[in-house]
């Protein structure tokens, strides 16, 4: 939240008032650290005859309700100044009501189209929401009033968020040139020094010389550190912000959220509660406190390398899958990146997506599936998503790649590269998890919307069109695919090392690949066009064919589907989402009694990365019917990475297949999952597990499970027989 917005130019027109003090004077006193004088100044404003002055006075005294009321009075007359709405909007922005603030800025612009401050307000709101218009609004403000230092400060902040450090420095310098007390511009410079591993002291000293209690400067730097993955360092600077101004409640809240990101619980709670109790009740504070309260519903599992935090309701089910996978990942990446993590990795798994979103950003509505904060990973549980929407295995490999790359580079890695490498690693783990070209990506390739590598970070942070984040993930991942394909995997590792040595993306590209970024872009674009250009060019034609196939399927014209399907499939084989051609052809094959064809097309769907559990179960049934038990097992095991929860039928079928194939340990895993799924048939599940334990020679566990089965259903004959067998002196499985 940006505070202390300089309003000197803004308020020049209001200098003539009945009292000696005007709002600019009061805010200037506060900005310069003259607290008691500022307080007195604001106090005098509250006694003004002018509602607007009273509003500013109450605002300065942090009497929000009264300030709001006075702004309402001031802005009510039809001929009231646009300024009043702008300032009112800024008050609401500061008090967590961005929706109404945005409305007021727009109303101000209706009164005065050339009001630069209104655009500053809109930019501030957009920055908070990461909605992609922030830069555009800030640029508009600068165009309308090039001498508005605050607009340049905002622009610098936006540029640094996009990791465009040259632009950030230039904009900050402009602000300082316009106003020698542009404290936020100085804080941006300090942040850049920190991100570049240099001392920020000179800049913070300049800030302290103007206002030693300007905690907002440290806070701004800390926020930028977080945006550059430097979570530990951010904690340090939030603490400095609080030290400078212990009543800076926003910093208390942000410190709490940052500490949560680092996997802490007690101190975040104290900081967030302190902020909340002092009236700082933005959504992030409230949501984070609520989430911390819910942690009592989680269970933590530790071993030497991992800390898994799982919701109690699904811990027994997920732990046997996630913990071993985590160990496999750590082993694979340790070997690949030739490094050992300094400590255990904490992975938190949220069955409620909005809890995960709050855990990540303090706010609901996040589109991501997982997020990494250094050695802490937060991610959705498969139960948080619709079956088929999410592959937790791929997400875990993705996030763990971040853990290694952030550690390897000491958190000095641009967003595009760590995301790209993580996407690339998913495909390395399994071709079925590889970077898939979705319709949004095809459209972006067709419309030439891919960003130059040097500017790719901005596609993640401030997207300029709705699907740009998805497109940017694809682009970053495919850039890493391209580097590996053309120069070899070693070059990706070399780039990791380059970033660890604080090189910029242009330098990293040039040093390791021997190309200027522009040359790299040209070659990459040619490669991507060669790979997907035809699909992109034919996208509209493919869509028309798909529509016709869907219509034919609805009319049960299976002959038409079988005939026209393969051509549509060939135009865009990577499409495996809703209404995909694979399923349409499979339906046609089934209707025509062609089980072999149905199995073949569904196998193609599976290998292309199709993830709908029901479709994969259908394939597994066909494979089983065809006597291909091994393939059926492999197909069902894929579903374990997609939707192992609330899926007792999956675990029963897979357990039965594994048991029949004498793979008893794996069968035990599946039957345990079945029991943990709390199925309707609890006795049956326990009995299956008992049999598997018995077959594996684990007699004691078999006895426990068969007792559990009979405790539920004492007359259960097969379980009774097994119990008697187990009671025998030398019980051995048949």
């Amino acid at each position, binding site marked *: 939240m940006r505070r202390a917005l300089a309003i000197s130019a803004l308020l020049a027109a209001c200098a003539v008032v009945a009292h000696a003090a005007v709002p600019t004077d009061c805010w200037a006193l506060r900005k310069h650290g003259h607290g008691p004088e500022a307080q007195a100044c604001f106090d005098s404003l509250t006694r003004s005859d002018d509602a607007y002055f009273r509003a500013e006075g109450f605002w300065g005294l942090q009497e929000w309700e009264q300030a709001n009321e006075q702004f309402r009075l001031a802005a009510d007359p039809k001929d009231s100044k646009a300024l009043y709405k702008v300032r009112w909007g800024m008050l609401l922005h500061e008090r967590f009501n961005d929706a109404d603030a945005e409305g007021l800025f727009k109303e101000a612009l209706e009164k005065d189209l050339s009001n630069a401050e209104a655009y500053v307000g809109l930019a501030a709101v957009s920055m908070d929401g990461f909605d992609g218009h922030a830069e555009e609004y800030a640029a508009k403000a600068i165009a309308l009033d090039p001498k508005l230092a605050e607009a340049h400060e905002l622009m610098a902040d936006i540029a640094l968020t996009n990791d465009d450090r040259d632009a950030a420095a230039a904009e900050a310098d402009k602000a300082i040139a316009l106003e020698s007390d542009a404290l936020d511009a100085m804080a941006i410079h300090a942040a850049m020094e920190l991100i570049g591993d240099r001392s920020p002291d000179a800049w913070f000293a300049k800030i302290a010389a103007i206002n030693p209690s300007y905690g907002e400067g440290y806070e701004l730097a800390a926020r930028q550190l977080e945006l550059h993955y430097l979570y530990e360092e951010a904690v340090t600077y939030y603490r400095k912000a609080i030290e400078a101004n212990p009543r800076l409640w926003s910093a208390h809240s942000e410190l709490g959220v940052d500490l949560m990101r680092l996997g802490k619980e007690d101190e975040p709670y104290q900081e967030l509660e302190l902020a909340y109790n002092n009236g700082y009740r933005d959504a992030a504070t409230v949501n984070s406190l609520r989430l911390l309260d819910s942690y009592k519903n989680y269970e933590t599992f530790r071993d030497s390398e991992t800390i898994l935090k799982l919701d109690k309701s699904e811990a027994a089910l997920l732990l046997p899958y996630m913990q071993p996978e985590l160990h496999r990942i750590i082993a694979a990446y340790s070997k690949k990146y030739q490094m050992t993590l300094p400590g255990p990795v904490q992975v938190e798994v949220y069955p409620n997506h909005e809890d995960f979103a709050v855990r990540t950003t303090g706010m609901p509505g996040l589109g991501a599936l997982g997020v990494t904060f250094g050695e802490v990973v937060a991610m959705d549980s498969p139960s948080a998503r619709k079956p088929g929407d999410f592959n937790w295995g791929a997400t875990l490999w993705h996030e763990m790649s971040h853990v290694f790359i952030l550690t390897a580079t000491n958190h000095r890695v641009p967003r595009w590269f760590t995301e790209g490498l993580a996407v690339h690693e998913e495909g390395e783990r399994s071709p079925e998890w590889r970077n898939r070209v979705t319709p949004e990506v095809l459209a972006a390739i067709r419309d030439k919307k891919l960003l130059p590598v040097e500017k790719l970070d901005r596609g993640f942070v401030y997207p300029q069109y709705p699907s740009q984040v998805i497109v940017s993930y694809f682009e970053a991942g495919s850039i890493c695919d391209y580097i590996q394909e053309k120069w070899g995997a070693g070059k990706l590792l070399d780039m990791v090392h380059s970033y660890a040595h604080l090189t910029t993306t242009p330098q990293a590209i040039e040093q390791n690949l021997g190309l200027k970024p522009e040359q790299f872009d040209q070659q990459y674009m040619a490669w991507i066009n060669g790979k997907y250009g035809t699909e992109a060019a034919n996208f509209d034609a493919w869509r028309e064919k798909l529509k016709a196939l869907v219509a034919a399927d609805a009319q049960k014209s299976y002959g038409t589907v079988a005939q026209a399907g393969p051509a549509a499939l060939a135009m865009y084989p990577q499409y495996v989402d809703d209404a995909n051609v694979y399923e349409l052809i499979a339906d046609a094959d089934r209707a025509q009694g062609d089980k072999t064809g149905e199995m073949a097309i569904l196998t193609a769907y599976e290998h292309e990365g199709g993830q709908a559990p029901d479709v994969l179960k259908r394939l597994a049934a066909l494979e089983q019917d065809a006597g291909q038990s091994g393939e059926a097992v492999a197909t069902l095991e894929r579903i374990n990475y997609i939707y192992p929860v609330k899926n007792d039928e999956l675990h029963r079928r897979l357990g039965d297949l594994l048991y029949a194939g004498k793979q008893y340990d794996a069968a035990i895993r599946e039957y345990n999952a079945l029991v943990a799924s709390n199925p309707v048939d609890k006795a049956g599940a326990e009995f299956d597990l008992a049999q598997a334990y018995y077959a594996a020679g684990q007699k004691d566990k078999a006895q426990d499970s068969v007792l559990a089965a*009979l405790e*539920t259903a004492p007359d259960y004959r097969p379980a009774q027989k097994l119990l008697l067998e187990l009671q025998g002196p030398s019980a051995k499985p048949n």
Partner: protein
Amino acid sequence: MRRALLAVLVLAMATQARAVTYFVIVAGLGGEPDYVQRFTADANELSRVYTAEGPAAHVTTLTGAQSTAAQLRAALEETAREIKADDDFVLVLIGHGSYDGVEYKFNLVGPDLTAGEIAEMCNHIASKRQLIVVTTSASGGAAPALERPGRAVIAATKSGTEKNATVFARYWVEAFQDPSADTDKSGSVSAMEAFTYATTKTAAFYDSQKRLATEHAVFNDTGSGDPVREAGNGEGLFLSTFTLLRTGASQEAMNDPAKRELLKQKDDLEEKIDMLKYQKPAMDPDDYKKQLTTALVSLAKVQEELEK
């Protein structure tokens, strides 16, 4: 099935060996073709499953154009004429329902029937054990009018205000086709087991779709009071003894005088196991396990003897 009621249960089962269950299944007005198809399929499938019980089941099914108030009335009147007090009566209503805040109506071809009218017709049926399963939208609104001692009522929705089309019927039917619904492995599916199965599967359906559940099934089997969502405090006992489908041969042993002593031992052991389970929270875990194992081994041996 709850063992605490064992004595009553054994008597009831012995009686049931000679008794018949009268099923009346109605697929109401579907409106849209998809619903017509779905309701008809559910009703026919249910009819097929119950009919497979043989002479112990008397099944009347109304679908499509037959699903009028007059036909339903006629079917219930015929049932009333034939049924004996010891026979069981089951009415299953599949389709759409409506609720205006006061009265529930089951949507039929032509005039609808209110819950009150349906209750009145069922009141003329002499059976002392009745079950009415209303699987429609808004069916919770029907429960108060249908409740009566000796009659259990199951509704797919908790109130008349849950008005979206339901999926409960699909899983009610499935409960009689999926062996896992027989959770106590008794060789039969009780109304309580079918209810538990259907509600679990219904909840899983909405969960898997990431949709807010718009139906929450309830039941009342005490004849008065608000319907509940799960067994406890006296609710659920009657439904647990209400067998809807027999899948095993347990019945035969019950009727063999030569095995009555073994059956007595079996009953005693089952009662002991129930008592142990009841006392479990207050027992030392090792002691509980030991005693449970002993009782279960004895029960298994008795069962082995019974099967000889």
